[in-house]
């Protein structure tokens, strides 16, 4: 079974890479197979990890006491579990143009809960903490505890933040000093994008290396070993 798996993986890898030459049936077969398997896998996972434990089981637990022939152990209170399930079902209103308005109710609950939980935390995480991180080194400079390189870093960071924010400040026309500040901001943005692009290249090349490593060592290595046992 393992040998079959290696051969299949090698065939599919080569089929996908064959697109680098030109589009072809092998590539399309591998692509459609990947999409089909992915969709099937995700549906099964979501049914088993999402629908059954969070919708079906609570639903069954709520209605079970009212099923004919089953003693009523739990009271009406168990039916409260049906409220979130019913709200979730309202999303299916989107399937019918006449009932699309039903989506507003679960959406309102989601947005309300999400905003209530996330907004204070996001302000703290992404605004207050980042502002502290930008200005805190200046307290260390004032206390004389920052190294010369640390001072350069702190000043550069403050310039970068101020200029980049200026670039995105559209309430003032970008003329005179504002224009120059925003140009410096663009330079910082480009450096940031360059770093992100370089890291992305590193990540993508790592994917290629892993596949080549598999083809050379696992697949061809297996074939060589197999030939070695014959001759």
């Amino acid at each position, binding site marked *: 079974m393992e040998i079959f798996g290696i051969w299949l993986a090698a065939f599919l890898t080569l089929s996908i890479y064959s697109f*680098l*030459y030109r589009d072809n049936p092998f590539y399309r077969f591998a692509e459609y197979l990947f999409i089909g398997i992915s969709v099937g*896998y*995700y549906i099964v*996972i*979501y049914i088993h*990890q*999402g629908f059954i434990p*969070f919708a079906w089981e609570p639903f069954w637990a709520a209605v079970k006491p009212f099923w004919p022939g089953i003693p009523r152990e739990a009271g009406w209170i168990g039916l409260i579990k049906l409220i979130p399930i019913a709200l979730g079902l309202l999303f299916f209103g989107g399937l019918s143009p006449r009932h699309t308005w039903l989506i507003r109710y679960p959406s309102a609950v989601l947005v309300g809960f999400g905003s209530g*939980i*996330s907004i204070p*935390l*996001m302000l*703290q*995480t*992404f605004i207050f*903490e*980042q502002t*502290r*991180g930008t200005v805190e080194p200046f307290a260390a400079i004032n206390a004389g505890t920052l190294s010369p390189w640390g001072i350069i870093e702190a000043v550069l*960071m403050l310039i970068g933040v101020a200029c980049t924010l200026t670039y995105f400040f559209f309430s003032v026309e970008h003329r005179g000093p504002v224009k120059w500040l925003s140009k410096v901001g663009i330079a910082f943005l480009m450096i*940031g994008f360059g*770093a*992100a692009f370089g*890291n*992305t*290249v*590193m*990540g*993508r*090349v*790592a*994917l*290629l*290396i*892993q596949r*080549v*490593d598999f083809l*050379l060592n696992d697949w061809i290595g297996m074939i060589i070993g197999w030939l070695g046992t014959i001759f």
Partner: protein
Amino acid sequence: MLDKLMNMDRRIVFILVALAVIIPTKLRVNLPISVSEPTQKLYDYIDNLEADSTIMIAFNYGPAGLPELHPMGRAVLKQCFDKDVRVIGVTLAPDAPTLANTLMEEIAQESGAVAGKDYVFLGYRPGGSLVMLGMGTSIASVFENDYNGTALAEIPIMENITNYDQISLLVDFASGNTTEGWINYANTQYNLQIASGVTGVIIAQMYPFLQTGQLVGLIAGIAGAAEYERLIDAPAKGMQWINIESFVHLLIVGLVILGNIAFFIRNRQEE
């Protein structure tokens, strides 16, 4: 000549890249690896933990993130098991459970760690931020069983673990933006210490959190994995692949320089 260079068939570049990967793979080149500060910080943090401390590892990646994140996951797990630090594995990615469980079992077997006592894998739960917030109150309210279906109450490692208060560190191996979620919902809300190992695509997004201390350490892509392997003195795929990667980077830099030279020469000729 210039026109030929500017209109070069892209498939020639593909062949050059393939050669830049295949030749070093067979030659087994060993280039020096220096350890960056963010990787060192994570290593030191785990190294300074007392034996029997518990950390949580979130394996938030599927097969596409495997080449970069598996080597770093392997290295961090090995360091934890060698130091008798207990590990609770979780995932928020639906395609991660099998990968994560197999990796934990493999490293545990190599290090002699015992399932249920030294480590446990709780599996996947949908919900993202709700899972992160829920575990801050009670891990058992989110994960009633582990990946194999054993009730949490019956697992020795979970005996004294209720929520994040008993977890010394969370390491998120991520190919998406889950680290920002952990910082937002677990660090800011519950003061849980967070570290991260990420794919190359999102490294740049993580640096602001290092500077503020919201991340205690960062393993950045395959380069970070190689650095970590060097720190724990266990060379594996990370160190092997980063050597190959260096050759491809050299080729890409060369091609970029060549393309720019040709571009500027042609511009000058047109003027």
